[in-house]
């Protein structure tokens, strides 16, 4: 069994961020007041964009919160050099994160939330890193901003360096966010992979805004800032639409999973419970985020093949039927689900749910980890009917362990035992969908 990940709680992150940056930010307070008094319109514009951006985050399909406009505006401030129509902008490395922290405070006061506070803290750490690299790190008597603003660097080199700095800050933000995501049963590596695959392209889009704004500001003035945010805004609109339709599709698959329940083939909420359990097991075993979604969809639709039966099975439990019949149901289910090109991966998992583990070991049958997870999760729910009392859970686990290494993959059974064991002990309560009467074990 793999080691359990150490969680980084959102509250802990906020406290650690405050402890790390608090004293430094306090030192920058006087600097911020000074800059605000000499450049009131410019700082006012940043406050408007930062507070607005914090209040209008974008939620990705996985539930991740990003604040693209706020991030882009804060990174711009960190990299900003001369601004046409403004006096020279003399600013220390702690002023940009301090202004961001103040605006985050305003936004959190208007719309509080623990998850918002933790992602805000991650963002603050990323911006602080960029501000320090761009303004605090001095090489040969010059900071990066002094170097590029002095005209010593060609435009292409300055923009490439800015892009790299912005990407570094966003990388810090996403890594901290991944550490927070890696709480509970999720592994850190899985969370980082999820961050890079889902938030990666969007993060890339955000990274270009700050260099664009900083490079246009010497000729366009403060108007450069909202103008450079237009491409990020377009991306945010596109991502919002994607997230919205993604959520609708998820609901659609859940609605499709009700077909067997409405037809009297399976007990109420069986597929939802199997999906929840399979997802938790997949997270624990390090299944990547995209494959987790396929696993969830396959679990929701895994019994669809039962509609080919003339008479429903007793209690809808496939665990009690002959292996050949189990495989036939799995094949029918996969064939139905495969009709949707977006569910082909889920169909492949469904097709393997009845394959015994010994076939993987002895005959080298190709069964993905998700298929082995689905097999165990389904068996467990068939045996417990959704009840999670210690006695029922113990009996079900005992029954499954009888088939360990023969019918079921030991790794997936260990993950199941840990998850349901935690639940029974109340360490990691998860909401389970409606419970049914337990079937004979």
């Amino acid at each position, binding site marked *: 069994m793999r080691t359990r990940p150490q969680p980084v709680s959102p509250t802990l992150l906020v406290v650690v961020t405050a402890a790390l940056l608090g004293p430094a930010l306090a030192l920058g307070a006087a600097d911020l007041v000074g800059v605000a008094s000499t450049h009131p319109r410019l700082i006012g514009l940043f406050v408007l964009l930062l507070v607005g951006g914090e209040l209008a985050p974008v939620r990705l399909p996985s539930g991740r919160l990003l604040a693209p406009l706020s991030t882009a505006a804060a990174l711009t401030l960190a990299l900003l050099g001369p601004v046409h129509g403004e006096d020279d902008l003399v600013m220390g490395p702690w002023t940009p994160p301090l202004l961001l922290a103040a605006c985050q405070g305003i936004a959190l006061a208007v719309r509080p939330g623990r998850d918002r506070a933790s992602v805000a803290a991650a963002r603050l750490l990323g911006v602080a890193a960029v501000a320090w690299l761009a303004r605090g790190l001095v090489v040969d008597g010059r900071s990066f901003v002094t170097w590029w603003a002095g005209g010593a660097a060609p435009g*292409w080199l300055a923009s490439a360096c800015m892009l790299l700095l912005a990407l570094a800050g966003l990388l810090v933000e996403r890594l901290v966010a991944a550490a927070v995501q890696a709480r509970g049963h999720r592994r850190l590596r899985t969370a980082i992979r999820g961050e890079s695959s889902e938030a990666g392209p969007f993060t890339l889009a955000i990274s270009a805004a700050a260099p664009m704004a900083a490079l246009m500001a010497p000729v366009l003035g403060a108007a450069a800032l909202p103008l450079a945010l237009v491409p990020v805004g377009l991306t945010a609109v596109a991502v919002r639409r994607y997230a919205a339709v993604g959520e609708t599709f998820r609901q659609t698959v859940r*609605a499709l999973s009700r077909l067997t329940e409405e037809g009297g083939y399976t007990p109420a909420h069986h597929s939802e419970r199997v999906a929840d359990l399979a997802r938790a097991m997949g997270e624990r075993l390090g299944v990547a985020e995209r494959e987790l979604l396929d696993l969830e969809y396959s679990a929701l639709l895994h019994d669809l093949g039962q509609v080919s039966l003339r008479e429903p099975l007793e209690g809808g439990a496939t665990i009690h039927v002959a292996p050949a019949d189990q495989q036939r149901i799995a094949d029918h289910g996969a064939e139905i689900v495969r009709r949707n090109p977006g569910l082909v991966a889920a169909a492949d998992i469904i097709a393997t749910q009845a394959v015994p583990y010994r076939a993987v070991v002895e005959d080298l049958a190709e069964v993905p980890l998700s298929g082995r997870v689905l097999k165990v999760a389904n068996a467990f729910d068939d045996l417990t009917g959704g009840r999670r009392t210690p006695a029922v859970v113990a009996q079900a686990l005992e029954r499954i362990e009888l088939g360990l290494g023969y019918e079921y993959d030991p790794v997936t059974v260990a993950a199941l035992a840990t998850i349901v064991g935690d639940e029974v002990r109340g360490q990691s309560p998860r909401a389970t969908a409606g419970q049914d009467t337990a079937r004979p074990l």
Partner: protein
Amino acid sequence: MIPYVLAVSAVTAILVTTALRSGPMPRPAPLIAMLVLYGLVWLVGDTFVESHVNLSLLGVVLLAAAVILGPPGAALFGVAIAALSRQAGPWWARLFNMAMVGLLASAGGLVYPLVGGRSDIGEVVGAGPLLREVAVPLLVADVVQALLNVALVVGIVRLAQGIPIRLQAKRMILSSGAVYLGYGVLAFVLVVLWLPAGLGPMSILLLLVPLFGAQWALAQYSAQVASQEASLEVLVAAIDTHHPEGSGRSARVGDLAARTAEHLGLGVLEVNDVRRAGRLNGLDQVTAGSGRADGARMLEGLTFLKGAATLLAAPDPAPVGAVVVAAAARFDDLVHRLGMPPAEALAALSPDVPVRVTEALAWSWDRVPAPDLADGEAGS
């Protein structure tokens, strides 16, 4: 069709010639740089925002060329990318698309200076001068390009598909108006970065990064929408799996009901709902095992099938669409399951179904393509 394409090509040739004579030729370096960068844009490709609207950096580059390369350069750029782009389809379609690109680039290049746009903007600074002398003329050129695009596409669609000009123009303006406005703003950003900010070709790479993100999100969106629509196929497959002896029934009933609805003059969306309801008509049989036989209940939560669910669950007096679906399903059962001749099946429907529906059904049945009939008979 071909005379129209030749006329558009002739207008393009005139505009390109005019643009080439309107000023000095551009320096080769920016032109080559823009062509190389266009190659990168081409690699990223277009992403469809909706079924017929796409987001492409080409629109941004075509517009920005008017400022960065000047009118002759913009015309040369348009002609070059038209010649370099490889397209499929008949020769006249390829010629039309090439002429379109050349025409839009030349028109943008000619309009920009005509409305006061400056090309020597390397030393221009300040929001006021840049907005007045670059942004506003650029937006005017953008609007001209958008209107020309609408006019030319409306013409070819009218000739090729017979879609009324006013309908197609309204559709295009509503769906792509915002996209063209976005092109204008992004082209201004590109111009400012390229010339006054002194970034040169690097500016297009900087702009490409966020647009790549937007295209990624839109591609995901399009794939999800397609998956959402394909969920109907999963339900139909479940129905066919439940009743293998009735294989093909869902498709037959859906097709017949849709043809009948069309003949009765129902709107496009209603016909679509009727087709879906017809295909899902057998859902009741799948849910019959629970003793409820309520297929429409199954569709709760499937927002894209709301219209079909309403037809399947329609109470008395049922709307025309629901009557059509029920009649088509019963007719199919009589013909394919009981082997009744179509004329007798129609007569059997008469007592319960309004005459105009049975007449439309008979009209549609006569026009069912032979392969459909053969498939249906093979499956029954």
